[in-house]
């Protein structure tokens, strides 16, 4: 990590748990920002000095607004950008939760309500 210190404008951290962040703060260059969007619990090991040096920022972001979300949807639909998904039945949800927790899920699980409605 040390070899890459001071090289990044922006780091987006999607790690879902608190983890020692100092090593990543140190990767930021002057005015760089590390945006935490994953961990919702106490963040660990962020030294004020390392933010002050390089005028770095540690930021957060929750979700997009409606207009932004619409823009993303339109953009993706126009360019045929898709998420990769695995369809499951509603009664498979408990198994799916296990798959998410143990990371055996390959792509995103999506509950398929449409099939049963077509059949009905």
């Amino acid at each position, binding site marked *: 990590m040390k070899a890459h210190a001071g090289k990044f404008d922006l780091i987006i951290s999607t790690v879902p748990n608190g983890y*020692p962040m100092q090593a990543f703060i140190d990767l930021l260059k002057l005015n760089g920002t590390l945006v935490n969007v994953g961990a919702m619990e106490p963040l660990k090991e962020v030294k004020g000095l390392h933010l002050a040096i390089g005028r770095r920022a540690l930021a957060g972001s929750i979700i997009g607004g409606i207009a932004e979300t619409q823009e993303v949807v339109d953009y993706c639909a126009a360019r045929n950008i898709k998420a990769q*998904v695995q369809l499951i039945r509603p009664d498979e949800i408990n198994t799916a939760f296990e798959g998410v927790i143990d990371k055996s899920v390959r792509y995103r699980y999506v509950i398929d309500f449409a099939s049963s409605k077509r*059949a009905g």
Partner: protein
Amino acid sequence: MTQTYTEEKSVAGRRRVLKAGAGLMAAPMLGAMAASSGNRGGIRNDPSAAAAQNVRAVGAKSATAPLGSLTISRRAVGPRDVLLDILYCGVCHSDIHTVRGEWGPTQYPCVPGHEIVGRVIAVGTEVTKFQVGDIGGVGCIVDSCGVCEPCQDDLEQYCEKGMTQTYGSPDAHTGGYTFGGYSDRVVVKDHFVIRIPPGADLAAMAPFALRRCHDLLADAALETRTWSARGCRGHGRTWPCGRATCCGPPCRGHRVYDHIIETRGCQASRRNGCGALHGCRGHEGTRWQVRSDHLDRT
């Protein structure tokens, strides 16, 4: 039990004001229509679809109980409401955190689901954004005050009075709390329903854009910096761990790296032309590592 929603007095500013009645068109789809079809033919008017109703859902009754079949109430369709017949709903780790009470106290029964795609089967009298037969999507948020500064600036997620999340939030309409997309139908205020363009792959649209599009970083605060996060827009994919992250080809001359906690993610990322910061899992005591060969490649 249910209340008809009354629109706030003044919603001006940058938020679009939708007016003009379209008549209460309540029309359940005859289930045989293809999910991705934009065809509005064969719709039957049925005002009863707009009434308060009980619908089937999948949820948990406690933090330790498995999810099972439940019946929940959906409010009557108010003047600015849209009734969606849910077709797909993505499964997010947030759902699990909430169901299991890992993010603070959870209201039970808990019906999660904030990646919803459904067909519009009824609209309120003042709704012009949707017609019966359209496809709509619902993400993490279903309501906000609409009048505070963030709301006026299209930042409903930062509403000063607090956004109403799609599930587990106090629900001003019913006095209860909200239920999410693991269910047959949902009633949502039109402003918070995303238009899904005709022809879109609905199952693939559900998780992708209706979740935390913050991952594409459209936050204005960041755009003031030299890095324009919008330049990365649209490169999201869904990772094995479920994250839609910025992982497309480098754009606007910037180099884009991924730091993904799983090797699988890094490999997929490199296929997309990203450099990869190869990190180990971020558990305590684990040292993060960077494989500089990936950095050098870009």
